[in-house]
């Protein structure tokens, strides 16, 4: 029983963390352009143009 008292909160906490991470990425628009992300690695940066 003592083990459970530690392990169950940990399990739930990790699950909640995952859920929170998913909501965060949803709100930040990480899923808005799924096909584009795969192509962006081919895009060469124009590094010095950045201010």
């Amino acid at each position, binding site marked *: *029983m003592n083990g*459970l008292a530690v392990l*169950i909160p940990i399990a739930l906490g990790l699950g909640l963390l995952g859920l929170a991470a998913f909501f965060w990425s*949803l709100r930040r628009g990480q899923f808005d*352009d799924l096909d*584009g992300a795969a192509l962006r*690695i*081919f895009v060469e940066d124009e590094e010095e143009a950045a201010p």
Partner: protein
Amino acid sequence: MTTVIALVERDFAVPDIRCAGCIAKLEQGLVRDRRIATARVNFTEKRVHLSCVPDAELPDLIGAFMALGFEAHPIGNALGDADPAAAGSRELLRAVAVAGFAMMNIMLLSVSVWSGAAGATRDLFHWLSAMIALPTIAYAGRPFFRSAWRALRHRQTNMDVPISIGVLLASTLSLYETATHGAHTYFDGAVMLLFFLLCGRWLDSVMRDRARGGITALLRNMGTGAMVLGADGKSRWIDATALEPGMVMLVAAGERLAADGAVIRGSSRLDLSLLTGESAPQLVRPDDRVHAGTLNLDAPVEIKVSAVGADTALADIARLMGEAAQGKSRYVRIADRAARLYAPAVHALALLAFVGWMIIGAGWHQSLLIAVAVLIITCPCALGLAVPAAQIVAAGELMRVGVLVKDGSALERLAEVDRAMIDKTGTLTLGRPEARDLERLAPHVQSLALALAQASRHPLSEALTRGLQALDVARADVHAIRETPGFGVEARWGDHVVTLGRPSDPIGGDALATQLSIDGALIATIRFADRLRPDARAAIDALRSDGIDVSILSGDRAAAVAPVARELAMTAQTGMSPQDKLAALARQSVTHKVLMIGDGLNDGPALAAGHASMAPGSASDVGKNASDCIFLGDRLMPIVATLRMARRTQAIVRQNFALAIGYNVIAVPLAFLGYVTPLVAALAMSGSSLLVVGNAMRLKRAIR
């Protein structure tokens, strides 16, 4: 320079984004324009999001795209989009995530209970499950509860009624079990049910979003406007929504009219094909009335605006369409039709189980437990997933071949079609002038024509450029190119002056033509005509072999329709007004399920009234909005592919229903006899869901 300017955000649809190169070109090229601060490409939706200074006007921004070689259409307004449908599907996704999280954690606890936890540990686990499940059901179950309540209030029943009753009853009973130290709780079953069903709902809404995104990108008339001549003699760009009667629009060749009006200066020819289906251009002179949506072909004209927005000729067609669309909204989707039979059956079974066990004398607690098991196990988990899973796979495949399907119900209706009525101009034909007999010109004439045509954005020049480039003609070396609006292009070629322009005297009635002259001497006359889509014959034959009767429904004159009808061996009705088309469709609809294929404004009511409808990507906005599905490109074969895919999808859906019923035939007797513990329910539910999703995946790669 350092003052902070509030930037405005704008979205543009750019249909030509195809590769990583396009992303780089757009994102890095656009910001070189002073007025544009940032540009972000959304590849999936083929959109570009810009932050720009507030005084950047639309034509300038579109020009910036043009300079990079992309065509851009503004979407929405500058206020950013508050899209209710997209918000709805995001809410569903959040519900899916919450239900998924809860399902996994409850399953974690349930597995320990099933593998033998007892006493205080089991009670603790049950309480924990309840603490996770109850808020989840309250949050993730809302879409079902809302829809079930709406149905019940109208004294109807739908799929959501047994779902809601099952979930609520199961969680109430499980809570009671938990409080009385019982052995079985159904929290995991209830939450799993919600999870699977939400997945189905979410897939359905994703499909609609995706198609709507594609269609928004195609709606080119959104956010159009006109150059308006001000009182001070200067012209400025005004958005179509801000146009007012009395304003004077300057319409260049190649532009579409943004409002109805009367010509006050200049004369030109207008392409009415989107409005009336008429293929021959109409000559307009001062005082002639002109309509929004027509394309100016020849020369710049000044038009005094007489009506805008809802007052235009469009309004009449919009009213017809509103009436016509009511028939379509009566269509009941296959899942709902199944639910009409299914829901009463499920309720009757559960009630029967309860009553039966009470009579045998099992006590109300035991009887209720079994009734809940019946409800949970018969809940249409597979049914809720069977239809959307198949339809989204089919729609994804169709999108790959350039067909946008607006929603699942469109696929269901397309599968039932047994007759097709097709518009001529713009649907069977390309709906744009194509240069004829180019290969007969001498090589140096071809290359001169290309050099001059490329310098102009006149519709005929663009058609000529397209035709010559298809022949791999090299461009002649000309310089000092000058375009005179309304007359043509002039340039120097060595010591000669070459011109490409409108014929000096009208040739052959109202046919479109352009003439190439060197030093004033006529060298060649190039004629233009609309022509059939390249695979029209093959597509029509394929439709016939699939058992679909086809006929032409055209607004054009009989003389113009006859050659097309003859070539395709189709019967045709000609000279039809929008009302005539609607009436012809209604006559056929009595005995047949009619597919309407058309592009023009005049097809709008018929498209709205057809059992199913399709429009080419080049169609008018009204046509695209009214139709169920849009095919891109010049070919007609996608129509055939769509109909075949729709039929295959329907077959898969039927198989899935059969699987779901087969599963119930095995599971229901077990539940009746009281053998369905929460463990069996969990296995049966996930097993049947995987089965129907796996079956739906077979639609992938169904189009070779």
